[in-house]
């Protein structure tokens, strides 16, 4: 399995370092991914609910925008 690597650039020294990610960094990446997926699911659910309401009212999205000004 390919190891996940991270890179660091030090502005003071100009030094670049590439190394394997630490356990903490891997956990951080995992949390970011989970939160991102959760946010996407939340946005998708909102969009589905909005579309369902439009369907019930028999309106298109543009018509709804016109209605709400």
């Amino acid at each position, binding site marked *: 399995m390919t190891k*996940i*690597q*991270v*890179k*660091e*650039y*030090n*502005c*003071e*020294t*100009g030094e*670049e370092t*590439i190394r394997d*990610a630490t356990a*903490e*960094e891997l956990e*951080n*990446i995992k*949390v*970011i*991914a989970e*939160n*991102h*997926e959760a*946010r*996407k699911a939340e946005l998708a659910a909102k969009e589905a609910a909005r579309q369902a309401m439009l369907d019930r009212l028999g309106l298109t999205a543009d018509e709804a925008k016109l209605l709400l000004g």
Partner: protein
Amino acid sequence: MAAGLGFKDFVTGEVLTAADVDGYLMQGIWVFASATARDAAVTSPQEGNFAYLKDTNTTTYYTGSAWTNLDTTGMVNPMTTTGDTIYSSSGSTPARLGIGSTGQVLTVSGGLPVWSTPAGGGGMTLINTGGTTLTGSSVTISSIPTTYVDLRLIVENYRPGTDGAALFIQYNSDTGSNYRNGSYSDTWATGSASTWASTANQISPDTDNGTSNASINVYMPNYSSATTWKPNYCTSIVNDNSTPANFRGLYFAVPYKASAAITSLTLSLSTGSFTSGTAYLYGVK
């Protein structure tokens, strides 16, 4: 006292008359103890008479109506070129200052006047020299100096290895719930109360992994404050991961809850590793 007669070349055997003496021989520079002595001796001065006064070490000449001081305390003109100016160097020594170039202003350097190009009112300085190529799953830019007013991050042509991945930013290795993401139309971004709900700021939409015309821009005003939270914001555009010829944009307020100065930032993907891209971090004066 007779007026001067000019120049005469006397020849051998020629008789020297009183007029010759007065008109030729007496037309040198006379030496007197003072102006008083001069005036007493020369009661009818003629235009062009010269007299040196020992008490003041000055040479005077008669203009036809008055004695005038020949010695001046003025300076030798040091100017040579159109636009030159004169300044006092080493006490009262006059010196030439050549004209500056268009747009330059007169200022002082080392106690002397110089023409100088005025400093700009602002400008950006690239902090991570040459930019930092994105590689691996995250890239950290550390030891950011706190000598600027604002920071501006530009990520060009970033491309994730995994289709649809998004780019996130964290500061000072802070992985706590000290971030918030959202558009400017979100209630929390329009004045409503809110909480810090995220562990990172999202700074790109879901991005295509095949084509990249992406431009990610994050502005960090007053980043070096040690007492205020950081009201960062971003404007980003990437290739749509479904139809790369289309785009996805992100216009987000991405505030960060930290009172400490931002001295490092980490760019991470939501999944996978970077294929390409370069991050440029600028300090803004």
